[in-house]
């Protein structure tokens, strides 16, 4: 019985067995790695979480995009998905989880309630999780279909591909900000108070006509 000759591993240069070299930009290879192994930390609080689970299940199969493993520990997660409304009582928990995630990390705000408070413009609800943590991608919808979340994640991958290691501000984290809100107090107030009948009109944006519907009754005198 002879020893079978070990088949040659395919090399990038394609010639013989000599060591092959691939030249690329460091950014490109790091971003390639980060893009394709985004481990999500699911923070599901409401109906959006059902759609998120559907996205990760067999039919939509998020594993195709490198999300093989749901990370239920923030310490091994790259991407936080806040799926659903966030009450003030949960806000310190979300902030703590975000602070526990190691860099590089990204976050997705899934659905209308996580992004803006949605219909829950009430005493108990955070008006957009971007007041608590920085957000990279907002997925609109109530709730968004799995296609919507997948599109959001593909957009996030697109964003990661464009990152540069030389940009130190990108992954910089200030220890002073641990456990603190993400936006200054004045901005939170300006974002929260409605200014017209549209959810797009707040004290920050002013009275901006955002759609074809422009009823005179909606305008301030």
């Amino acid at each position, binding site marked *: 019985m002879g020893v079978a000759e070990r088949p040659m591993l395919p090399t990038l240069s394609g010639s013989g067995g000599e060591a092959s070299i691939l030249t690329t930009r460091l950014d490109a290879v790091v971003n390639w790695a980060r893009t394709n192994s985004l481990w999500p930390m699911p923070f599901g609080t409401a109906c959006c979480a059902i759609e998120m689970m559907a996205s990760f299940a067999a039919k939509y199969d998020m594993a195709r995009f490198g999300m093989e493993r749901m990370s239920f520990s923030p310490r091994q997660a790259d991407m936080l998905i806040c799926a659903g409304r966030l009450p*003030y*009582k949960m*806000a*310190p*928990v979300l*902030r*703590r989880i975000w*602070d526990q995630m190691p860099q590089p990390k990204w976050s997705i705000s899934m659905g209308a309630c996580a992004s803006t408070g949605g219909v829950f*413009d*009430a*005493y*108990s609800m*955070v*008006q957009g999780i971007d*007041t*608590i943590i920085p957000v990279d991608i907002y997925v609109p919808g109530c709730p968004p279909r799995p296609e919507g979340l997948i599109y959001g994640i593909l957009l996030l991958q697109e964003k990661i591909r464009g990152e540069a290691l030389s940009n130190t501000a990108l992954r910089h984290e200030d220890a002073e900000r*641990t*456990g*603190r*809100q993400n936006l200054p*107090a*004045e901005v*939170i*107030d300006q*974002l*929260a*108070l*409605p200014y017209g009948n549209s959810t797009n009109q707040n004290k920050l944006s002013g009275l901006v006509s955002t759609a074809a519907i422009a009823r005179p*009754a909606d305008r*301030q005198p």
Partner: protein
Amino acid sequence: MRKKSFDEALHDLESGPEPTEESGAPRGESADASSHPSVAALRGRFGDAVLHHTIFAGDEHVVYVPPERAHELLQWLRDDEAQRYDLLTDLTAVDYGGGRPLEVVYQLWSIAAKRQLRIKATLPLNALEIESVVDIWHAADWLEREVWDLFGIHFRGHPDLRRIMMPDNYAEGHPLRKDFPLRGRFSRAEQTRRSLSMAVEDFYTPDELGAAGGAQPAPGVARERAPKDGAPKSSSDAAGVSGTPGRPNDPEDWTLGTAGSAAGGTPGPEGAAT
């Protein structure tokens, strides 16, 4: 109903509705006591303590009782051999708004007799206090805490009356009351600052954290709950506690609009880490 102007509607959103002039008459149609055996027995034993008896939605018998006699009456309903309302299905409260009295609702079910009965006690807004029924049904414990948290009704004799739904440092009042503005009393920025000034440890008692295998929080970080023997465990614990033990949510502990952690309140997560 008159259509409100934009300004009026915005004012309502921020300050809550104005009181109206409606009376607090009992809802539902008046009923004959003989239509429910327990009501007939109640009338026979307690007489005029049965203020009204109405039927709501076809077969829901509602008995209005004076709040000062509610405990005695409920105790009898549970213990009497012919009644035996041994299951407290629900305990809640209703605010019909417009300055009308709040109603505490006891929804009872008798497993033995397969009968249900709803007892209501009306409390005027200036005397929101009623005897606790935890000694009759243990199920009332968290339900009474919830009613206290959301409506501000004080239950005399409750073993551990503190907030259950809203955060422990909540100082805006009792949100399910009709005079509570929809968005709360503080600005969004202040609400955000307050919620983040809660450390995660504040949601649990030291006992609960110990049971979960977590580290014991530093003294003063976790708020002292009401100890069973009525005294703080040690003087160092007591030093970190503001206000009376057992009433950690005293609004006077919290000052409005100060930067960083509130005076006398809990330190932020940085404090928890040290």
